[in-house]
């Protein structure tokens, strides 16, 4: 038996960040990861967006807090360059319908206090001259940006490890066990781990684990795909998205473009047990990109990848202390937009575990919010 103050299940960026902030406050933490690699799930398979615009109001406080207080100092705090760019987010539109969608999103964000506004075609091209003539409007949030998810995930790992967090990879959690009415044990193929607090930050797999203590998290998975180009000369620094969310991406510090998109078949994409790309999505994303950024048509694609997202039924995660099961904490179901809020989630989850005040209102992300329609 191995004991700790807190056990975090899942060494993605969420789990790593939680472990880091807990260890920083002096806790003894163990992180258990089923995969051989740190950050094998969505943490290494996302577009790197660090944005507030376009977010559900329930998770917006986390996004805003992180961008104001955590992301700008993260490289320094963690001792690893995470390639954070706070150069704005353009959400592009081509049609009247797009404009309507974008205006709606913008109005809701403004109501939450976010500095975002609609801009016209002229201003769009002032900000990004590489965009095609087809782009007729955009929502523009100057304080949004992007970072390198691979590095940010490993930076939290590295820093947490330095603080004494014990990461164990290749250790799949098989079940959870309560002792005398309180969740205390995590059972793996190799060992039994025991702690006062158990945080499930393992994406879609959290659903099966939580079931051992009678909690259901209504999420499913979808296989999303991205492509990466060779390094290109520096073109622009904003994060890009579209009204229809059919493509999103940015140019990394290294020069490569990391761009995600959809074929429309994500929810039913078949896999072979690993997150394998479909044969049709890369072509579809490439067509989308060329329409928005014609100059990239000769950029070489060096890699495509796919990753499962843990898609919550209402599109935002559960970040909560489970009152019904003492000792259980949940941080899962990020629905494809967890990266940007990961630092704030890590900090607040640590505070939640420690019983300290939260920096953000996350009451909209409670585990018990799900109900049948009225």
């Amino acid at each position, binding site marked *: 038996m191995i004991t700790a103050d807190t056990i975090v299940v899942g060494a993605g960026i969420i789990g790593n960040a939680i472990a880091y902030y807990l260890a920083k406050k002096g806790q003894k933490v163990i992180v258990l990861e089923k995969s*051989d690699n740190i950050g094998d799930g969505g943490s290494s398979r996302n577009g790197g967006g660090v944005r507030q615009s376009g977010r559900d109001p329930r998770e917006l406080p986390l996004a805003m807090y992180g961008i104001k207080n955590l992301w700008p100092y993260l490289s320094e705090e963690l001792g690893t360059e995470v390639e954070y760019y706070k150069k704005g987010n353009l959400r592009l539109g081509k049609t009247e319908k797009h404009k309507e969608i974008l205006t709606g999103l913008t109005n809701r964000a403004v109501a939450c206090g976010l500095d975002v506004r609609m801009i016209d075609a002229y201003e769009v091209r002032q900000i990004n001259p590489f965009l095609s003539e087809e782009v007729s409007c955009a929502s523009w949030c100057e304080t949004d940006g992007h970072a390198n998810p691979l590095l940010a995930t490993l930076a939290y790992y590295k820093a947490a490890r330095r603080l004494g967090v014990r*990461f164990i990879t290749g250790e799949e959690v098989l079940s959870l066990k309560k002792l005398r009415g309180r969740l205390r044990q995590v059972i793996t193929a190799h060992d039994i781990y025991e702690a006062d607090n158990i945080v499930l930050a393992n994406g879609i797999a959290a659903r099966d684990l939580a079931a051992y203590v009678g909690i259901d998290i209504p999420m499913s998975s979808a296989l999303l795909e991205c492509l990466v180009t060779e390094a290109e000369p520096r073109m622009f620094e904003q994060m890009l998205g579209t009204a229809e969310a059919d493509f999103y991406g940015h140019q990394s510090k290294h020069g490569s473009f990391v761009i995600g998109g959809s074929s429309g078949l994500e929810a039913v994409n078949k896999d072979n047990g690993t997150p394998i*790309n479909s044969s049709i999505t890369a072509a579809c994303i490439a*067509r989308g990109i060329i329409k928005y950024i014609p100059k990239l048509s000769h*950029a070489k694609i060096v890699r495509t990848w796919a990753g499962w997202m843990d898609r919550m039924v209402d599109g935002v995660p559960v970040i909560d202390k489970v009152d019904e099961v003492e000792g259980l904490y949940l941080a899962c179901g990020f629905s494809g937009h967890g990266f940007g809020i990961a630092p704030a989630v890590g900090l607040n989850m640590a505070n939640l575990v420690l019983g300290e005040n939260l920096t953000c209102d996350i009451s909209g992300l409670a585990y018990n919010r799900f109900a049948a329609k009225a």
Partner: protein
Amino acid sequence: MHELVDRSLKDEEFEEREDDDMLICRCEEITKGEIRRAVHDGMYTMAEIRRYLRCTMGLCQGQTCAKLVKGIVAKELGVSPDKLEPATSRSPMRPTEMYIIANEEK
């Protein structure tokens, strides 16, 4: 090789070597010293090394350096190179222009 690995911090200083400045991954210009230091920093697998340093992810897709990187990582970890799982292979097998991928015939 799927196995349990405890990543706890090892109580040893990073030791610089004379040939640390030797380039290993030519596409991404990563040196032997950077790879060694990454292992020291806890990057124990080929997947982590490449996510951390980008080596083996350039235009040659690791054709030239993947074996070399693996050798260095294995040596740092004190294991045989064949115990390290190679990183995933991803389409396209050859870097391909976006307009070509976009031009699809079913």
